Structure formats: C-alpha cells, structure tokens
C-alpha cells in the first residue's frame, strides 16, 4: 500500500516535469494522429467519391490521352540525354555550396575568435574539395556538350 503510494508520488513528479502544453504521453500525439488520418483521407476520398459521383461514359474520344488536341506521336516517357542530368548534378553541387556558405557567413564572427579562425580554415578546405570535384568533372568532359 505504502509502496503504491510512493510510486504514485513518483509518477506525479514525472508528470509535473512535463512541460505545459505537451500533455500526457499518449494524448500528446493526437495532433500527429489526426494529421496522419487527414493525410490518408485527403487523397483517397476525392477519388472514391468521384467514382460514385461522376458519370461513367466511355467513348472512343474519351479514352484518348487528351480529349482534345493532337494525338501524340511518341511515347510519353521520352528519354532525355544523360548530359542534362550531369549538368543538373553539377548545379546541385554548387547549389549546396551556396546553401552552406550562407549560414556560415552569418555565424562566422562568433563570440570567440578561435571559432572564426577555425571556420575560415574549414571553409577553405570545403571549397578546395569542391574545386577538386569541379576540376575532375571538367577533366572527365562533363562540361562538354557535344
């Protein structure tokens, strides 16, 4: 009996430490669950509803890819030349560099000079590695279009 009381006391202590607005261990997740439910229902519902609501009339014209315009002459899944992807990747590399540079610039001058020194060196290394990669891509002919 006594131990049960003590346990309860311990429990209430734990609950007391729970920050305000977060709630109990399970109830705290209600928003997540609701979100999950909505996420499932949202795409499914229109389709299912549409099935009941829409008239089911299939005609030749209706079954065409587009109900108007010109018939496609090639496959819809066309193949693009691989060079586009290479360019896209190169772009991504430098894109990431920029993304990384921005926060770096913001916190560059920290409270402590030791950090500034470190950060400066580190960025040189980072850019150095990127340059190596760029050079490699260049040498391998990734920048040549023809």
């Amino acid at each position, binding site marked *: 009996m006594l131990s049960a009381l003590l346990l309860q006391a311990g429990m209430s202590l734990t609950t007391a430490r729970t920050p305000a607005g977060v709630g109990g261990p399970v109830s705290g997740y209600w928003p997540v669950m609701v979100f999950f439910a909505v996420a499932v229902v949202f795409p499914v519902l229109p389709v299912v509803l549409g*099935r009941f609501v829409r008239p089911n009339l299939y005609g030749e014209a209706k079954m065409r890819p587009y109900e108007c315009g010109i018939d496609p002459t090639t496959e819809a899944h066309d193949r693009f030349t691989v060079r586009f992807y290479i360019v896209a990747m190169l772009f991504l590399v430098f894109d990431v560099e920029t993304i990384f540079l921005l926060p770096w610039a913001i916190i560059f001058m920290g409270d402590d000079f030791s950090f500034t020194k470190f950060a400066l060196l580190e960025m040189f290394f980072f850019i150095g590695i990127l340059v190596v990669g760029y050079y490699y891509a260049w040498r391998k002919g990734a920048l040549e279009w023809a």
Partner: protein
Amino acid sequence: MTNHLLSIVVFAPLAGALINWLVGRRTRNETLIGFVACGAVAVSALAAFTIAFTGWGGAALTGDAATPVMSHLWTWIQVGSFRADFGFAMDRLSGIYACFVTFVGLLIHVFATGYMHGDKGFYRFFAYLNLFMFMMLTLVLADNLLLMFVGWEGVGLCSYLLIGYYTDRKEAGDAAKKAFVVNRIGDWGVVLGIMLVFFLTSHAGAPSISFFDKTAATVGGGDGVKSALATIGAMPIEAFGWQMIFAGGITSAAVLLFIGATGKSAQIPLYVWLPDAMAGPTPVSALIHAATMVTAGVYMVVRCSAIFSHAPTALFIVAIIGAATAIFAASVGIAQNDIKKVLAYSTVSQLGYMFLACGVGAFVAAIFHVMTHAFFKALLFLGSGSVIHGMHHEQDMRRMGGLRKYMPVTFAAMTVGWLAISGFPLLSGFFSKDEILWKTWSTESVGTAGVGKFLWVVGIVTAVITAIYMTRLMVMTFWGGERFRETRAGGEADEAHAHAYDAGTKPHDASLPSAGDRPRHEPGGSVGAPGHDAAAGPHALEDEDEEEEHHGPVEPRESPSTMTVPLVVLAFLSVVGGWVGIPYALSGGAVPNYFERTLEPVVARAPEAGAANAQGESALQRGAGASAQPPAAHGNEGAVPQSVGEGEAGGVPASEHAPDPAEISRERLFTIISVVVALVGIGVGWLWFQRKPLYEMPRLLENKYYVDEIYDAALVEPIKTGSREGLWRFFDVGVIDGIVNGMGRGMREIGSLLRFLQPGFVRSYAAIILIGALAVVGYFAYFAYNAVLVINR
C-alpha cells in the same frame, strides 16, 4: 606427464600427406609415394606404441598410474570462459585406439600399395589416406571435445574425399555427398552436445570442455583446466524418463552426442550412407568404413561415459538403437549380392553390437569389440579386396565361386575372418561378442535392466544371422562352381542368373560400365617401376590394361605379396586378438583379463537399478579419466575401493575379483549358448548355400527395406520442393508479389498510387521491406505500450 612424442603420432601422417601431395604429384613414382605414405604411418605407429608401452614414453597403457600422457601445443581458443586447447593426450582408452588405428592403418596402407598399383591418382589416394590417419588420430588423441570434433569433421571430410575418389563415376560423387550430408546431420548433435557440456559445466562453476584435468604446468603457464567429465561426473544421476531428453541437462547432452554417433557410426536412422560408401576403393572401405572411422562414435560414447552413465535414458536409447541396428543390418546383409555390400551391412550390424554394449553400461566390452572387429573386419575387407582384385574388379558374388583353389592365401585368411566374426570359439570375435551378450543379459543398469533379456535375444538372433550371411559370402565366393566362366561366356548360366537381377528394379552391378571398385589405369602403362617386390611382377601392366579392354573370361589369380602379407598378419591378429580379454569365467583366473583391467579405470559405470546416487561419486572418479585421482588408485594393486558397483565390495576392480560361483556358471552356460548359436548359424548357412548358392533372397531384404527410397520421398524431396516452391517462389515471389499486384489493382482503382512505383519486382521488394518494417514497428509498439502503461500507472 608431458611427452611431445605424442604430437609426432598425430602429425607424422600429415607430413606424409603433404609430401605426397607436393612431391608425389610431380614424380608419380609409386615406390616413393608408397614408401612415404607407409613410412609416415609406421613412424606414427612406432611412436604410439612407444608411448603406450615403454616407460620412457609414459607407459600410457601399461603403467600403474592411469594418468594420461599429455602434449599441450597451444591454447587454441579463449573467449571469456570458453577455452579449448590444441593439445593431445593419450590415456588408456585413447592409447588402445591409437595403437590399433596406427597398426591396422599401416597394414592397410601396405595392402593399398598393391591394390592401387597402376592407378592414375596414386599420389592423391595416399595423400588422402594419410590425411585421414592424421584426422583419425586427432580425433582419438584430442584432449578436449572441440579438438575431437575437429578430428570428427576431418575424418568425415577425408571419408568424403576417398569415397568420391573415382571422380569419373557419378555414383561415387553422390555416395560421397550423401555420406557427408548425413554425417553433418549427425554433427549438429555433436556441436550442440559440446555446447551443452560447456553450458552444464559453466553452471557447475567450472566451465570446461576438456577431457582431462590440466594443470598450469601442463599447459605452460596460465590457469589450469578442470576436466569437464569430472565436473559432470560429480553431478547427481538424472532420473529415467523421456522428458529428460528435452530437459537440457546431462541426458540432453548425452542424447545429442549420440545423435552424432549415429551419424558417424552408421546407426539407425543415419546408417544409410555406409553401404553407399562402398563406392570408394576397397582399402578405404577396410580402413575407414570398417576398422577405424566408423568406430569413432563408439569412442566418443565411451570417452564421455561419465556423461552417459549419468543419463540412464540416453543409455537406454543407445542400447535400443544399437540392438535394432544390429538385427536390421544383419537381415539386410543376408540378401546382398555385392561382396562389399554384405560386409558393409555386416559392419553396421557389428557397430550395433558395440552400441548395445555401451547402452547396457559395458563400455569396456564395447571397446574390446571395437578392437577385435577392427582386426577381423579389416581382414575381411582386405580379403574381399584381394578377391575383387583377383577377379578383375568383379564384385558380384553370383559371378564368383570356387575361388579357393585360385587364391589359396586369400581363402585361408578369409576363412579365419569368417570364423572370427561368426563367433567360432577361441577366435577374437568369440570373446568380444560373447562378453557383450553376457553383459546384455546380466545388465542391471537403470535403463536397460528391464529389457536386458529381450536385448539379449535380439543379440543372439543377430549372431545367428551373422554366421549365416558370412557363411553365404564364403560359400558363394570360394566354393561351388566356377561361375565366373559361365557368366562371362554368356551362356545358359547367364539365363539362370538373369532373373535374380533382371527382375529387380536395379540393373545388375556388373552390367554397368563402371560397376564396382575399379582403379583407373594409366592408358599407356607408363606408371613408374612396378616392383615393390617380385610378386608384383607377373601381375603387371599388360594384363592390367588388357582387362580394361575386354570382358572375356579371365582366370582369377592370387594377389601379390604386398596384399597377402597384411592379410596374413591380420588373420593372425584375428585369432589371438581376443586373448587379451578372456573373461574370468572362462579362464578361471589363470589368464588375467588384461583388457578389462586396463580400461576399467578410465570408464564410468552405468548407474545400477539398486544403487542410489552415491553412484554418482564413483562415476565422477572413474569418469575423470582417473586423472584427478592418485595414480595408485587402480591397476593391479587396486587398493582403494572407489566404486560401490557390482562385485567390488572387496576393493578390487571387478576384473580381478572372483564373482560368486553361480554367476560364473551362468556365464559359462551363456558362453556355450553362444558357441552353439555360432555353429548353428554356420551350419545352416553351409547346408543351405552350398546347395543353392544363387538362392534368391526376399525382395524386401535385397532392396534394403526400401529405406533409401523412403528417405528420398519423405525427407529429401519435400525439403527441396519446399525450398523451391515454398520459401522462394511462394514467399519471396508468389505471395508478396500477389499481394502487391492485388493491392496494386485495388490501388489503381482508388488512387493510382502504386502504378508509378518502379516496374519489375522492385515494388515487391519494397513491399516485403515495408511489411517487415510494419512487423518490427508493431513488435516495438507492444513494448512501448507496456512502457506507457508503467509510466501512466
């Protein structure tokens, strides 16, 4: 004591194997290869006998002290408390084994130089054979269970290599694979048994898998090791009951070890590989599948007698399996026509006898039979090899007959073997078999006391059948008409025999192009110098080659002296080999029972029905390989009463003590029964088969009770099909893909979600991963729920 000569016993054959593989392969000189191979085994035998019998070597066998001779090489594994050494030890049990293995091995090596003469893979054969000796000696001399298992697997591997020696024959490959797979099924039992022994000793506070106590001095520093057998021997004897098998105690360990023994020693239900193993060359059959390797199971059971004696249930199982195998295999053996198949089933049957002895607690008798069996069965196999050789690789007994005038030496030697295995008085087999039967009748151990009489009946019936089929073999081979002429001529005789095999499902062995044990000869006859000795001369290259060419009638001829000399030596041993173990009842004390006196100290005794748990104590002391005990405890003086077992109240080992007269006279009576049985068996066989050597045996027996077919249908096929159709196709592809397709169909209608997932099977893979993920998350969710409950309480 430590004596590193012991390592030479083990490693000499390995050196021989390496030399033959590296040098012999280049030179292809048969004299050199044969010399190296035989020399290696001879060195090994010499060293083994030195250690066993001379004081300098340590007198492992004859010394008063029953302490083992040790040779610790290095600590092999040490993980946590799990420790295994790479070290050898020879105590009295392994001493007996080492001596007969090396000696019989030597004889068979010599024989093989004649038998394999002219074979293309001569060097390979002897390299394998030496490797086998190395592994067998490792098995026998290992000082712990794990190293023993190394040898255990190693002999299996060499057996695999040698069964499949004729690589151009498909059935050899299949037989080899079958042997290995069946053995592996048994091996999981051994591995688990070893693990369980470790587990049990860990719980007793002395984790160990060692057979012997090893002091820090022996292992060269560090901690010593306590004997696992002693630790288990100190535990109380487990109750008798089926539930003990699964209790995870000593009985479980014993049963697991015995499963391994059924694999290696060809007992029901895992015996099926041994008859097929006859696809290997005959010396291999003699060495591995008769004399040495197949008795490894018996060795292990006796070595672990401390474990088995604490597990009456296991002993009961051992006895029943042994007896069942004995009679079953004997009944199959009577109907075989291939001379080696008869001997193979005979081996299985005799091994059954040995396990029967173990099961009733007569471990000494089991080892005694192992030894005598090694002599006479090696003799019989080599004799059959000689016959096959003389008959130009004909193995079917229906095509033999009347050979005694062509092969007089072989005939004489085989006769000795025949009489020995049949239990003819005063030959080796007589003593050992008689002892087993007597111990079976008089057993008082907890498990088998009730069924002892029944097992004895089984044993005696087996003895009759044994005598009959051996007589049949002899008669068909050496007496009667010279059928090899008729069949080769293809006249009426062929017709007469035809129904015997044509009606059967399988074609006649001899009608197959590659039937039998057929060394491959170098086509050009360009083998090295033929002469190990003069007798090999006449039987030389030309007619070796000739026989490959045509199958006309050929005169059988006596084998060269490299082959007959070992036969004679073995025949001599088959006669006198049993004299070291003459029971008290027969000798009246005039000749001491050396064998029993030597082995008594190192084996445990089965718990007896009347005796209480105090027995456990004595089993401890005996089971420990006596190494824990002061040396003088046993042996001739036998001053210390360590066992309260039967007839030992006076403080003298049972072998020395004169039992009460009633007992003696009863034992004598049973000896007479044995003799009568043997003579009856021989007589029946003689009368029957002398008249009708080609008498057609029941189809059921000839086809070995269809066990192979049953195994195939009941085990092999379902597993294969299950794997193919079930797990792989059904689960990996069928079900999951079905689900995905089904889902996909549904989904397409709903929201075309899965349509744009990748084509091919990636979607099924993703689905499997997803389902697995859901299962894992669900599993965790259950515990999360518990945790939340606890917190919310």
